[in-house]
C-alpha cells in the first residue's frame, strides 16, 4: 500500500488555525470594550486626532495668523486666553497635537519593528549571536535616552526625520529585550520542534511560526512605546531640539511660554501642559488595558 502524501500534510500547520485566531482576537476586543479605562483612553486619543485633522475648520480663531493683543487672560472671547504674540491659546492647543501625532507613532513603529526583528533573532539563535547582541543591548540600555537624543540632534541638526530615527533607535533595544524573552519561552514548545523536524528553515520558523505567537507582547509593546514616544518627543521639543517653530506643538509652546509663569501669565503654559498630560495618560490607559487583557 503506497502512502499518499496530500498537499495538506506537507503544508505548515500553525499551532492555532486562522479562524481560531480571529475568534481569539474578537474575544480580546470584547474584553477591552468592557474596560472603562480603555474606553476613556480611546475617547481622549480619538478627540485629539479629530481636532488635529479638522484643525482650522473648527478652531474659534486662526491658530497661526490671528494676532490679537498678547497675553490676554482667559475670557469668554478667548476661553484659554492669548499667547505672547496674541494668538488664541485654545485654537493652538487644538492643532498642537498634529506634529507629535505623526512623529511619535512613526518613532514607536520604527523601534518596535527593529526591536522585534532583533529580539526574534536573539531569542531563536541563542548562543554566540545572542551573547554578542545582548551585550550591545545592555550598553544601549545604559545610555540616558534624553541626553543621547540631545547629543545626536546637536550633531545631526534637528528635523522630524532625525527625531523619528533617534527615538526609534533608542527604543529598539528595550523592545528587543521584551521580544527576546517571549521567544525564549516559545522556542521550547512542541510546535517549534515539529517545524524543525519538518526541516523548515530558521527564517521560516521565525516569521511564520514564532512571530504570530509573540504578536501579543509585540502589540502591547507598540502601544507602550507610543506613549513613551510622545513623552520623549514632547520633552525634546521642550528642550528646543524636537519639533520646531512655527508649529503649535504643546511641548514647544510650553518652552516658549514657561518663563512668563512667574509673572502670573500661566494660561499659555498650563493648557498645553494639560493637553500633553491628557494624551500620554490616554495612550498609557490603552496600553495598560491591552496588557491586562492579553495577560488574562
Amino acid at each position, binding site marked *: 500500500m503506497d502512502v499518499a502524501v496530500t498537499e495538506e500534510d506537507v503544508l505548515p500547520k500553525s499551532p492555532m488555525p486562522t479562524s481560531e485566531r480571529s475568534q481569539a482576537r474578537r474575544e480580546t476586543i470584547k474584553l477591552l470594550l468592557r474596560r472603562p479605562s480603555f474606553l476613556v483612553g480611546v475617547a481622549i486619543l480619538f478627540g485629539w486626532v479629530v481636532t488635529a485633522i479638522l484643525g482650522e475648520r473648527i478652531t474659534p480663531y486662526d491658530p497661526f495668523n490671528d494676532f490679537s493683543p498678547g497675553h490676554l487672560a482667559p475670557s469668554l472671547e478667548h476661553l484659554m486666553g492669548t499667547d505672547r504674540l496674541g494668538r488664541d491659546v485654545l485654537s493652538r492647543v487644538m492643532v498642537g497635537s498634529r506634529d507629535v501625532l505623526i512623529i511619535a507613532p512613526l518613532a514607536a513603529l520604527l523601534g518596535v519593528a527593529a526591536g522585534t526583528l532583533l529580539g526574534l533573532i536573539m531569542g531563536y539563535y541563542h548562543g554566540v549571536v545572542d551573547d554578542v547582541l545582548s551585550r550591545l543591548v545592555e550598553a544601549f540600555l545604559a545610555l540616558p535616552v534624553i541626553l543621547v537624543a540631545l547629543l545626536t540632534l546637536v*550633531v545631526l541638526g534637528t528635523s522630524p526625520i532625525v527625531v523619528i530615527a533617534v527615538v526609534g533607535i533608542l527604543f529598539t533595544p528595550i523592545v528587543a529585550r521584551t521580544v527576546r524573552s517571549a521567544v525564549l519561552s516559545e522556542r521550547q514548545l512542541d510546535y517549534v520542534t515539529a517545524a524543525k523536524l519538518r526541516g523548515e528553515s530558521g527564517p521560516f520558523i521565525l516569521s511564520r511560526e514564532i512571530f504570530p505567537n509573540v504578536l501579543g507582547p509585540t502589540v502591547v509593546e507598540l502601544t507602550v512605546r507610543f506613549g513613551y514616544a510622545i513623552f520623549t518627543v514632547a520633552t525634546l521639543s521642550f528642550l528646543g531640539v524636537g519639533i520646531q517653530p512655527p508649529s503649535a506643538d504643546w511641548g514647544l509652546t510650553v518652552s516658549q511660554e514657561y518663563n512668563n509663569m512667574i509673572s502670573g501669565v500661566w494660561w499659555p503654559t*498650563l493648557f498645553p501642559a494639560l493637553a500633553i498630560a491628557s494624551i500620554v495618560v490616554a495612550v498609557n490607559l490603552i496600553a495598560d488595558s491591552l496588557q491586562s487583557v492579553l495577560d488574562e
Partner: protein
Amino acid sequence: MARFIGRRLLLALVTLWLLATIVFVIANVLPNDIGRTILGPFAPQESVDALNEKLGTNRPILVQYVDSMIGIVTLDYGDSYVTGRPVLPQLFEAIGRSAKLAGLALLITIPLAIVAGLFAARRRDKPADRAIVLLGVTSSSIPEFVTGTILVVVIGVHFGLLPVLATPPADSDILTQIRYLLMPATAMAIVYFGYIARMTRAGTIDVLQSDYARTATMKGLTTSQMMRHHVLRNALIPTVAVIAVQIGYLFGGIIAVEKIFNYNGMGQTMLFAAQQKDIPMLTAGAIVIGIVYMLATLASDMTIAWMNPRIRLDAER
C-alpha cells in the same frame, strides 16, 4: 559572592566599552565635520580647517577613537569647546548638585511608592487597588516638565507656598535648601512613584500566591508577621531592580526639570553644551551618566543576590 561580583564587574567593563563606542560613533562618525557644525554653514572653509586642526578633529577617525578610549580609562574626557578647560571637574560639580535634587526625589518617592504598592497588593482588585494602579499609570506617564509646570502654576504662583526657582541663596542651611528643591524634586518623584509602586505591587502579588506564603498563613501567622518574615524579602526584589533602572532615567528627566526651575545642575550644563555645540561636554555627560546607571544596576544585582541566595548561587555556577 566574590566570584559573583568579579563576573559582574567584568561584564560591566565590556558594557562600558560598548557604551563609549556608541557615544563615540554618534559624536564623530555621523557627520564628521565638527568645525563646520560649530562655526555654522556660512563660515569660510579656512576657519573650519583651522578649528578642526586645533581640536584635533581632522585626525584619522581610528586615531581619535583609540585616543578617546584611552581617555575613558585615564579619566581624560577632553576639553570643553567653550571654556577650553577639562570637562570632567565641571561635570562632577554639576552632577553633585543634580544628585542632591535626584536624592531628594528618591527620598520622597521610594517609601511612598513601596507602601502604596504593598497596600494595593494586599487589597488586590478591590477599589483601593484599582485606584493605586490607575494613579501609577497616570503618574508615570506624564513628563516631568509637565508636572513641573503644573506645580509651579498651582503651588508656586497661585498659592505662593514654595519658591518657583530651585537655586537657594548662597550659604543657606539644609532646610532652606530642601524648601527650594522640594517642588522640582516632587515633579520628578511623581514620575517614579508609578513605576516603583506597580513593581512592588506585582512582586508582592507574586509572592502572596506562592505555596510558602499559604503555608505561613495556615500555620497561623498574623498577616503582619507573614509580611515581615516571609513576603517582603522576596517581594521587594523587582522593586530594587526597578529603582536601580530609574536612577539612570532620573538623570534624563532632570534636564527638563532643571530648565523649568532654573537649577544649575547636570541638566542645565548639558543644555548649555547643546546650545554651544560643546560636544566633549555632551559625550562626557552621556558616558558618566551611563556609568552611574551601570553602577546602580550593579549595586541592585548585588542587593538582589544578597536577598535571594538562589540567584547568587545560580550565577556562581
